[in-house]
């Protein structure tokens, strides 16, 4: 009954609405809570400040007292809690949506109930606690009725995660759908939606017949297919080299797997410009040496394709190396003992066994490419794609939220189809194989023919990747790469300068502000992301319940929602009450949490499935409850996975751009959006300098992690240390 107290306490004492100072502001502590209008709690808002609709909340909050004292097994107890809790939740949500900042939220209500001068702000702590109390009443009720073996902790966690995912994933997406059928005045018009949806700018095929532009949807699809194919093939080549040849520098190839994790994707685009742009290093050299005139080829489809392939090949490699290693050597040996030549073995046994993995890698590349925002923004030229169009629909002169919503729906439809195809078609194989144990036996070397092709494509590509990273790391030290290659520290001083001022040191560089914001937001988001991800993983791996598949789908869904779509949807959903958080740091933290949650979930699933379930059960039969079991048995054993999840969510929060660019505000600027801003200004030097600093910071974070995890492995011989999960499955932001 703790939750009655918490909920009612919140209702009685804490401000019901968000105060002007923002969600985190503690001004209300001194400003007259719980009585004055701005900071009044739910109860006093209802009694003193003309908001009588808040009074029923209190009644519902204390209602369960009626059944306190009944035994848990009494069916009335559970049923009452479920009913009251659900009613309370529905009421809190309902009133939040019905009465907005300027009266009725639904135009329909106006004639029905008459005009109103009722208004309310976004919900604050009081509302939050009341809603949580209702939620846990419901879950307690279900537990009392025997759900999940009556386990209060697990049912509560499931309820909490479902509520969070509903509010921060489904609700925003739903808001997009709503906006899409609204015109700019807010009235609904389905025809307008249709005309926007089938607009020639989206679906036009003029480029086939005349020298005109095609619709953005076709552009995006074409680009995604090309990138999917090229990154898969290159990834396969690298995977074959790493596992099926006696290539010496295999360990170096493994370094490749780290790169996409620590590189903001647009940085590749930037490097490509610096190399191959009109004034690029390579273009200039070609002109000087051979008289080949520089062109603008990188700005457009070829450039984006090129940059995306560079950016996403490591991801395909990461997926495929698991697959290639997973092909049992025994099968290949069997084939060879059946007198197949090595080429026959490769083409009739090994390759077909890898087919699901190849499809998986392709779909990942496909989704990544569609979702990629940075590279098209930097390299787009006249080649428009959905993700950037969405951005320009919102921030550009158009400021057409409806159009942005429609574009977002089209993009979402593409990525979701690919995501669902991947799930239906490949099932859960993708988890198992990435961490699967290899059989014993020597992997068969690939045939000479294949080897030649593989080395011929992969090695030049690897060299190119190395050059790109050299450019990134050192490009910041010259005036303007390609044009003026004199050494300078100017860019670093401009961005990260520290000068001695009147009152001690001053962080005078331009970048410090966004740098500190980024670090702190990422540091706040990381533990939250890791916790929700691991908790979800625990539930998915260890608990069986009705609706588990839907639960899993819901938690993994945000993986398929491109960052740009998240950005737009968060703006649409959280700009107005009942949840009003745009322009705050909270919205950034939340967007990171729910975008990166699938990474945490997968990391957790991978390492938790290696923990024998009888460990939990032993703890339960020894009298520990499931919360104690998680705390004393599971968490200590998952420590490496937790560390990994922490670092990866931290790093991914630092490299994200697509959602971030919509959500940053003057107070909360992030590193990546700052860099994009520099690029758009043509300050390539500063952009590159800042990028290299980011990459270094993240590299340090990852190395630190590997050190910590490695140490643990040595100390424990039992082999319980979970593998460091790979970020293979994360969408580049």
């Amino acid at each position, binding site marked *: 009954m703790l939750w009655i107290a918490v909920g009612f306490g919140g209702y009685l004492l804490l401000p019901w609405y968000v105060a002007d100072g923002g969600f985190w502001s503690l001004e209300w502590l001194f400003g007259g809570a719980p009585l004055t209008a701005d900071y009044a709690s739910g109860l006093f808002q209802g009694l003193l400040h003309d908001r009588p609709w808040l009074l029923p909340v209190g009644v519902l909050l204390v209602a369960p007292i009626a059944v306190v004292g009944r035994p848990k097994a009494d069916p009335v107890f559970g049923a009452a809690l479920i009913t009251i809790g659900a009613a309370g939740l529905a009421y809190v949500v309902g009133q939040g949506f019905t009465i907005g900042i300027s009266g009725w939220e639904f135009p329909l209500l106006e004639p029905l109930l008459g005009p109103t001068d009722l208004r309310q702000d976004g919900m604050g702590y009081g509302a939050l606690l009341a809603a949580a109390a209702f939620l846990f009443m419901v879950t307690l009720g279900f537990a009392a009725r025997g759900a999940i*073996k009556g386990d209060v902790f697990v049912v509560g966690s499931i309820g909490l995660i479902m509520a969070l995912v509903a509010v921060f994933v489904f609700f925003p997406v739903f808001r997009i759908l709503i906006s899409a059928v609204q015109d700019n005045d807010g009235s609904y018009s389905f025809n307008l939606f249709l005309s926007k949806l089938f607009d020639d700018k989206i679906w036009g095929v003029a480029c086939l017949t005349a020298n005109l532009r095609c619709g953005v949807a076709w552009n995006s699809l074409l680009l995604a297919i090309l990138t999917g194919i090229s990154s898969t093939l290159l990834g396969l080549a690298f995977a074959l080299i790493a596992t099926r040849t006696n290539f010496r520098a295999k360990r170096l190839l493994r370094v490749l797997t780290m790169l996409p994790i620590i590189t903001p994707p647009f940085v590749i685009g930037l490097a490509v410009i610096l190399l191959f742009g009109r004034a690029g290093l390579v273009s200039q050299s070609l002109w000087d040496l051979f008289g080949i005139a520089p062109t603008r080829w990188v700005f457009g489809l070829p450039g984006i394709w090129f940059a995306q392939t560079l950016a996403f090949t490591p991801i395909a490699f990461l997926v495929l190396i698991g697959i290639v290693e997973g092909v049992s050597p025994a099968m290949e040996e069997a084939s060879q003992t059946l007198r197949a030549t090595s080429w026959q073995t490769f083409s009739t046994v090994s390759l077909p066994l890898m087919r699901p993995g190849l499809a998986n890698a392709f779909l990942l590349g496909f989704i990544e490419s569609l979702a990629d925002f940075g590279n098209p923004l930097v390299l787009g030229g006249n080649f428009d794609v959905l993700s950037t169009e969405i951005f320009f629909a919102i921030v550009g002169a158009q400021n057409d939220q409806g159009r942005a919503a429609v574009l977002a729906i089209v993009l979402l439809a593409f990525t979701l189809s690919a995501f669902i195809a991947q799930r239906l078609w490949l099932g859960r194989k993708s988890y198992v194989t990435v961490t699967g144990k290899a059989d014993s036996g020597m992997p068969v070397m690939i045939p000479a023919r294949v080897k030649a092709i593989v080395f011929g494509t992969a090695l030049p590509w690897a060299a190119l990747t190395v050059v790109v990273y050299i450019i990134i790391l050192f490009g910041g030290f010259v005036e303007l790469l390609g044009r003026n290659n004199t050494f300078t520290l100017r860019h670093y001083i401009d961005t990260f300068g520290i000068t001695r001022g009147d009152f001690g040191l001053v962080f005078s560089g331009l970048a410090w502000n966004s740098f500190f914001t980024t670090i702190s937001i990422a540091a706040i988001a990381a533990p939250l992301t890791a916790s929700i991800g691991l908790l979800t993983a625990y539930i998915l791996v260890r608990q069986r319940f009705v609706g588990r598949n839907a639960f899993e789908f819901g938690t993994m869904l945000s993986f398929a929602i491109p960052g740009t779509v998240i950005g737009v949807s968060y703006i649409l959903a959280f700009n107005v009450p009942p949840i009003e958080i745009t322009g705050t740091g909270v919205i950034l933290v939340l967007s990171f949490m729910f975008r990166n949650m699938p990474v945490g979930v997968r990391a957790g699933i991978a390492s938790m499935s290696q923990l024998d379930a009888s460990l939990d059960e*032993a*703890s339960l*039969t*020894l*009298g520990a409850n499931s919360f104690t079991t998680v705390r004393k048995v599971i968490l200590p054993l998952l420590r490496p996975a937790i560390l990994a999840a922490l670092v990866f969510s931290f790093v991914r929060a630092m490299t994200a751009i697509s959602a971030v660019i919509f959500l940053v505000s003057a107070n909360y600027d992030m590193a990546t959006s700052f860099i994009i801003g520099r690029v758009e200004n043509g300050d390539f030097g500063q952009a590159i300098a800042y990028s290299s600093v980011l990459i270094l910071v993240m590299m340090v974070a990852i190395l630190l992690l590997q050190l910590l995890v490695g140490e643990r492995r040595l100390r424990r011989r039992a082999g319980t240390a979970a593998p460091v999960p790979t970020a293979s499955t994360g969408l580049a932001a």
Partner: protein
Amino acid sequence: MTMNANSAAVRFEGVTKAFGAVVAVDEVSFTVEAGSLVTLLGPSGCGKTTTLRMIAGLEMVTAGRILIGDQDVTSLPATDRDVSMVFQSYALFPHMNVIENVSYGLVVSGMAKPVARERAEEGLTQVGLAGYGNRLPSELSGGQQQRVAVARALVLEPQVLLFDEPLSNLDAKLRRRVREDIRELQQNLHMTSVYVTHDQEEALAVSDRVIVMRNAEIAQEGTPHDLYEWPLDVFVADFVGDANVIRCEITRIDGLEATVRLGGTERRLPHRDLPVGEANLAIRPEAIRLNTEPSATAIAGSVRKAVYLGSHIEYAVDTDIGELFVSDSRDGQAITAGSSVSVTLAERGVVLVRP
């Protein structure tokens, strides 16, 4: 630690457990007397583990009631039941040392750490591992790990102690010794125990009573002696020990006895409620005697295969009544394959069984 005063009886009343469409346990009822060791025996997949986990509260029943002592625990979760379990994989917490493992249950149920430690030390002494407290589970042999798992379950002095195939990860030699240790400890502490195994010899060796399961149901329940000597049906006869199942004919029933015709011979056996007509006879391999001298009153046969196994010799014998599997542990020369033999049956080890 002396006799466990907490030991309580376990009762299943019409318990059913379904996983979706699969019925793992089907309307099973039985009682485990306080202080006794009852084994659930049966082939893989027949529902033994599920039954055990329902006692522990790790699975919830679909229908029926479970009582421990006088308490109806049907809807109690594992945490709230006073039951401990020794897992097949031992499930020792790898990040805790032996003493922490053994005192875990005491500590999480609120006992002060020093007291819990002391009790854990006692428990370790009981299983013969005094002084191993500071080792990690990974620094113990399989048999030692197993004993830690037992100690961890014992120190809670639970109402019921559960074992799920506790010996399956040990090698054959060790298995025999550990099962004797477990039995001795159980008897000394007078601990109600339910023990799951698919190994019939192990079941006979450790149990007060054995429950033989087949396809989610109880096939037969009884003392080891009852089961071996008086199997009810073909399945039990074949699963508990080996048996030659031979078609025969009941020609007459008078009193408790039936006259059974087998090949050219006749003998009298308890009829076990079987009617006159075709019937099945279970013959233990060691109840068959082979003789190289021909005899008119015996069944004629010829040895197809002879396998020398040191302590005894196994034969496959072709006869009119079918192929017989024979185990002969008497001294003497092995009969070579191809020899003609006359087959006679001993007094014990021949029973009528239901199909």
